């Protein structure tokens, strides 16, 4: 099995996955949830089993709009058969009480109306969270880069290992964020703080996987000093392949169980994790080690001389 030989093919596959996500990001933007933009999310259950329609809810919300509080055009989505979720601009707890009372009076059918979930986040806090989140990802990348460079200090060009691992990591971040943008557009998902948690987990796993492969390269370069670098890297990937696939399988199976049986509230989170962790395993086999080879051969010098080759990230 020669993975290194076909490295540009695998880079190409990565681009094929990333580019649609990037386009979705550019044209549709990442649908940010209220955790990052500020606003309110109200989930109500109607014991009568007949929740009001989108238009009916919008009318009620409109009535509670004031000059300082714009509640017009709420985003209403059904949630199972008897519940709805409503997203709007920020609304405080007192107003929420009035809105729910109004909904109950008009559309409750004389039966109970239960607030399943209510969140409101002020715009300032939301923005701060978004900025800090980006900072957290950057900080994680930097910390990991430093750690790998330190852990591989015995190997020639330890810095390359750190950089390649971080590039693979950003590959997974792009895949995950792109997937969120695509799914957000088609399924109405919004990136909330759980999405952020998923993203950071993906980063953790991605680096985890990459280090396992790199560790084998580290061991093998010391063992087979006469063999050329490409062969050593390829050999290392093949040696760790069983492990990569088995670990991938167990994690994916656990996540799949969560996705199928774990309930609505975590499904979004789990699906994003599934995508990200799959990407993490892929990049740790097909991106990060080949990048080391590209770097070793300084292949970018010949990229534009021969026929067109897809560039790496």
């Amino acid at each position, binding site marked *: 099995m020669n993975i290194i030989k076909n490295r540009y093919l695998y880079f190409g596959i990565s681009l094929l996955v990333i580019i649609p996500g990037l386009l979705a990001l550019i044209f549709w933007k990442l649908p940010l949830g209220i955790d990052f933009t500020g606003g309110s999310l109200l989930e109500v*259950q109607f014991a009568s089993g007949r929740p009001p329609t989108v238009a009916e809810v919008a009318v009620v919300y409109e009535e509670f709009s004031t000059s300082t509080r714009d509640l017009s055009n709420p985003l209403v989505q059904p949630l199972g058969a008897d519940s709805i979720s409503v997203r709007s601009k920020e609304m*405080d*707890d*007192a107003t929420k*009480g009035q809105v729910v009372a109004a909904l109950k009076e008009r559309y409750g059918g004389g039966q109970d109306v*239960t*607030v*399943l*979930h*209510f*969140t409101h986040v*002020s715009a300032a*806090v939301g923005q*701060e*969270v978004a900025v*800090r*989140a980006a900072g*957290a990802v950057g*900080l*994680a990348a930097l*910390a*990991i880069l430093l*750690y*790998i460079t330190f*852990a591989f200090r015995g190997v020639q060009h330890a810095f390359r290992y750190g950089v390649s691992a971080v590039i693979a990591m950003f590959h997974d971040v792009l895949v995950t964020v792109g997937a969120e943008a695509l799914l957000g557009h088609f399924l109405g998902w919004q990136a909330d*703080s*759980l999405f*952020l*948690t998923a993203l*950071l*987990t993906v*980063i*953790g796993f991605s*680096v*985890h*996987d990459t*280090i*396992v492969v790199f*560790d084998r390269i580290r*061991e093998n370069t010391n063992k087979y000093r006469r063999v050329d670098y490409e062969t050593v890297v390829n050999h290392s990937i093949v*040696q*760790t392949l069983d*492990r990569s696939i*088995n*670990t991938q*399988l*167990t*994690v994916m*199976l*656990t996540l799949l*169980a*969560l996705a*199928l049986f*774990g*309930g609505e*509230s*975590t499904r979004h*989170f*789990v699906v994003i*994790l599934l995508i990200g962790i799959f990407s993490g395993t892929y990049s740790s086999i097909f991106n990060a080690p080949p990048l080391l080879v590209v770097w070793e051969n300084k292949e970018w010098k010949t990229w534009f001389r021969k026929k067109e080759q897809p560039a790496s990230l």
Partner: protein
Amino acid sequence: MTRRPYLMLGLILLLTALAIWVDSSQRITIINPFNQKTLVDRNVATRLGLDLRGGLQTLLEADLPADADITSDDLGVTRQILENRANALGVSEVVMQVAPPRRIVAEFPGISNTEEVVASLQQTGLLEFVDFGTSPLEPGTVIQTDYGQSPEASATAKPEATATAPVEPSPTPTAIAPPEAAATPAAETPTIYHTVMTGAALDTVNVVRDPTTGSYEISFILKTDAAQLFADFTKNHIKQYLAIVLDKKVISAPIIENEISDGRGVIRGGFTSDSANTLAVQLRYGSLPIPVKIVESRTVGPTLGEESIRRSMVAGVIGLTIVILFMALYYRLPGVLADLALGVYAVTSLMLFKLIPVVLTLPGIAGFILSIGMAVDANILIFERLKEELRAGRNLRQAIDLGWSRAWLSIRDANFSTLITCAILYWFGNTFGASLVKGFSLTLALGVLVSLFTAIVVTRTFLHVVLDNVKFAEHTRWFGIQENPR
């Protein structure tokens, strides 16, 4: 080599037994058998986060300009007052934490009257000066006063549940002439106390030091319209107690030593610099040293929480079963041993969650399930290595030791990087009171640490013990290596 694994096995079994005991208890009590003293007495009930049991979480922020200087003391006092208020509403298990520099996270598990609670957080609080006559109450006592009620209403009000036991020892000072211990039978007789004036009557409040003794005092000046009222009252009530009551809770009960006729008075007592400042702040601001507004609130109904727990449990059991089967089928005997180690891992982690304690949220449970994946990964790394060494012709014992020492490097580096991510997540969650993110990083980090222990110590011990009792040469298939020398 033969003795040590058995010693380790004994320790592991002991740990497992301990973990199962803690996991299945709500409260653990250990009594020293020699002198019957209680050594450990802890509530170890599993703590569920708001998303699982329902309730309200709010993020409060100082309602001041961004460049305003907010001291951590002010924030702390604000937190304390808000907590007292929430407790006064009868909400149990309120958790309030400051998130410097300008925020406070408040959690109210299991409540449904969220609007009422939120309203009480946002009100400005009521400071009263209450006539205690000759019998003072301990600071911290919750009382009823006649403030805001018409005289008739206060006279006919039902004397029920007025004085309750102190909610917690309040850090407030005992004022002038600290009341003797015998002075509190009043707690038994429900009384509605008379409010002489409210905090609105205070003009300025300062902490000063007595020039001769150097002790801390609080000097205050009343507004002119209140000065006369206060002069009359103090004249008629010398040697009686005038309590300072905040949100119906006694914070200090000084004795009136002489008439205060010009509206200028001093509260004296065994103050430290800190306690004097705290009381001064409470007097000065009526209640909150800094005004707060609610910038975020999350309400989860209890039904949603129950459903989530049930579903997560089902998913967890299914996921774990699949992993256990996979390990046993693919790795044979070592796989079965790893499954046992996984059992040790699960009960140990759960014990840690209960002891620390970690508040379990939905992402927290997800983090735990993910860490199971990492625990399995450590085992897989070792077994793949073990197989390689066996194929390279080493005997089994050598292969086990080599497999472990070589796989250890990968496991260490890989898990360390996960821990780095966890630390950054935890910091992120902490800064924003995002307890969901915090819970996730904490359970994942704990899981990673415990998984290192189980993979390196537990599985290895199990393997060594089994090898002592099984002839490897006759059972190579148990290790899944005979048929495929790839």
